[in-house]
């Protein structure tokens, strides 16, 4: 910790949409309290003042998709005492990891007029595939309450209250009627980690797994059930190949149904 | 020296618990009782394995020589336990060394002689080897538990 007594916070961005770091600025009620407890030392989106590292707490958004970023994440790790990845990109590779299932060269030529200028890795990968991560916060985007909890827990040296059980748990805690059982909607809730307070079911739609697989996600049982209920194999592939499609439990399932 | 006859000393040792009297008498003929001071070597790692021991009193440490670390203690063998079975299995050399850490009293049997006795009396040999096997099994179990590191702090 620096002499000022306040730990230093850094926010890093890799391939992402900025939504997760925006969630920090979206903590309108607590932003100034946070700034009172922790020095915002390196957060380009919010401040042009860059304080030199090392940093006590680093929040890392985004996935690794370029050689340069592959190197940069190691520098970030070196400069960070406690490194937390925030969001689906950083924890599983994000939506851009859909490239992992295709030929990235073809992707480049589809999007770019001058493919030779594009330098990119074949895969989009999670931060933890490259460096040691001290805590992974899920979500596309992260829940700002959970983000606050992680920061608060860090400041208080406690374990954050971040459950890894299913979305169904939150759905029932909230009193929402299951959209899958009562309306036959496809829902990824049973294999998805909680954190959103069952947002989609509460909006009367099935969960599409922003938060990625729950602990011990039984993807094959759920996928089998979908199939039995009339979903096509292509649909199942798309379901498991979403914002966390590169997470192990989901990737294996989508590959199984793709064949 | 010991006023007690060897046979009754051996009879008190757990190794021979419930062994038929005639067997015990025959084995006792092979035993000598020996006292070791603290820190004496009983046998060295790699040396020819000649003897079978029962610890009567005291404590024996099993040790091995590791490059860079010197002698490392692995386990102790306490009063009531047996020591040394390498005379039973090729290449008939001690895999580890043994040394006393306290004044220790041992019953020592010559392995070759024991085998000769067993040849003549397979019943006795069977009784004896079964006990050795039980002891080895226990030792193996203990070693496994040691490996498990069960008291370790899980968060370290």
């Amino acid at each position, binding site marked *: 910790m620096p002499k000022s007594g306040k730990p230093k916070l850094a926010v890093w961005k890799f391939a992402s949409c*900025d939504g997760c770091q925006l969630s920090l600025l979206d903590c309108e009620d607590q932003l100034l309290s946070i700034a009172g407890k922790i020095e915002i030392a390196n957060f380009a989106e919010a401040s*042009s003042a860059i304080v030199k590292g090392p940093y006590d707490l680093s929040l890392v958004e985004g996935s690794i998709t370029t050689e340069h970023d592959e190197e940069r994440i190691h520098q970030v790790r070196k400069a960070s005492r406690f490194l937390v990845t925030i969001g689906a990109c950083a924890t599983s590779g994000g939506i851009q990891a859909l490239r992992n299932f295709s030929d990235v060269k073809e992707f480049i030529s589809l999007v770019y007029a001058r493919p030779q200028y594009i330098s990119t890795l074949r895969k989009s990968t999670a931060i933890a595939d490259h460096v040691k991560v001290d805590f992974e916060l899920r979500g596309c985007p992260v829940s700002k309450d959970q983000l606050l909890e992680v920061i608060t827990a860090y400041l208080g040296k406690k374990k954050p209250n971040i459950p890894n059980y299913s979305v169904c748990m939150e759905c029932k805690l909230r009193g929402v009627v299951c959209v899958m059982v009562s309306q036959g909607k496809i829902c990824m809730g049973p294999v998805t980690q909680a954190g959103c307070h069952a947002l989609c079911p509460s909006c009367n739609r099935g969960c599409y797994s922003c938060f990625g697989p729950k602990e011990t996600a039984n993807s094959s049982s759920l996928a089998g059930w979908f199939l039995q209920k009339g979903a096509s194999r292509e649909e199942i592939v798309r379901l498991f190949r979403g914002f966390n499609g590169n997470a192990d439990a989901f990737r294996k399932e989508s590959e199984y149904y793709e064949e | 020296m010991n006023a007690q006859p060897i046979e009754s000393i051996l009879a008190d040792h757990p190794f021979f618990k419930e062994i038929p009297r005639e067997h015990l008498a025959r084995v006792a003929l092979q035993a000598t009782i020996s006292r070791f001071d603290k820190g004496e070597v009983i046998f060295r790692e790699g040396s020819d394995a000649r003897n079978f021991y029962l610890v009567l009193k005291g404590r024996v440490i099993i040790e091995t020589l590791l490059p860079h670390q010197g002698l490392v203690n692995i386990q102790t063998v306490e009063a009531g336990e047996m020591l040394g079975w390498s005379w039973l299995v090729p290449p008939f050399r001690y895999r580890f060394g043994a040394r006393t850490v306290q004044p220790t009293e041992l019953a020592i049997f010559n392995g070759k002689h024991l085998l000769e006795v067993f040849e003549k009396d397979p019943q006795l040999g069977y009784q004896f080897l079964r006990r050795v096997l039980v002891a080895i099994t226990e030792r193996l179990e203990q070693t496994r538990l040691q490996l498990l590191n069960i008291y370790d702090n899980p968060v370290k």
Partner: protein
Amino acid sequence: MRSKTIKVDLLARVEGEGALHVKINQGVLKEVQLKIFEPPRFFEAFLRGRDFREAPDITSRICGICPIAYQLSASLAMEEICGIKVEGQLQELRRLIYAGEWIESHVLHVFMLNAPDFFEVPSVVHLAQVHPEMVTTALRLKKLGNTLMAIVGGREVHPVNLRVGGFYKAPAKKVLRDLLPEIRWAREAAIRMAMVISGWEFREFTRDYHYMALSSPDTYAVIEGSLASNRGVDVPVSKYDEILTESHLAHSTALHSRTRDGGTCLMGPLARYNLNYDHLSSGARELAVTMGLQRTCHNPFRGIQIRMVEFVHALDEAERIIEQYEVPSRSFMEVEPGAGTGYGCTEAPRGSCYHRYTINKEGIITDAKIVAPTSVNQGPIEEDLWDIVAHNMHLSDDQIKFICERAIRNYDPCISCSTHFLKLTVDRE
């Protein structure tokens, strides 16, 4: 004078990551480059093969700052293909959540990204030490925008409640009506803040811009209208590609969106204000007058004021919509896929966000094109920078750097959005 390079390696207080390189040789300005080093993410590529209903959720992930723009542009395009038109209360709800996005995004830009420049402090947290009241007010205003997004959309970033055809669930009347006092407070506060801002010093700088935005005869266009400009463009959104094309420019490694004749055009608040002033709410127009703004404004450094005008407009819109809101009988219109190509364009806080999709009869996307406003605005940004640097070469590097950064921030460029088509060069020595 020796040759020198002014570099800002990491642009601060913009969304996403970019850099600025200015090269001056013997006192002559040689190069101005706004570099984007956001890695490419290939949205248009992996949209192929996805179900058309997934486009709003997937494309919102292009940008966490203005997800509604993506969700609605995508939805409009899909609805066009499938031959439905969302109207009535559902359309009003779309306007309402868009107002929420404008409120949130404009406050973010005005107070958290741009205002620190006027006080030469690095961040809103530092600003809070100088002007605590302004910052707490700003945070409360921002929260209102987020609350609107959360009520209508489920959450602030990447809302889940929007779908092709409308909404998954219509919000209850009461929760919306409960917001009215806060909206009314917000308007008072916004006007108060706008007057404070008007007292700040604005750099004198004007150029003859080609403004482009959606325009409608009935309303300050956000999710409707045609693509119009002050130089005579007035075409339906489906003709977007005929007006604007992406091209490589010699001095830049990035793809720029340019008009057919190679010119640049400017999108966003300044363009909308200049093109659609008459459709601003009366309160917003009143504020513009009180702030001393004319019917037109050609100084991008006054963008912060224009955003306050739009901010009040968005609040007025929100109030109007909520006051007449009735829960619609159906929260969405049924959509059956039909093969074809469709176009959608809506006004993101930063300018027009354009989507084009082709889907097959199974509803699977076979082609997608997305142009974010920042790619269009890159042209005028670089031109502004040329102008500014050329006129201020007598200043120190640090001063030039500072002015350039401010000039870029005028546009509130959202680099995250841009990166799925902007070329990446990594040139950081």
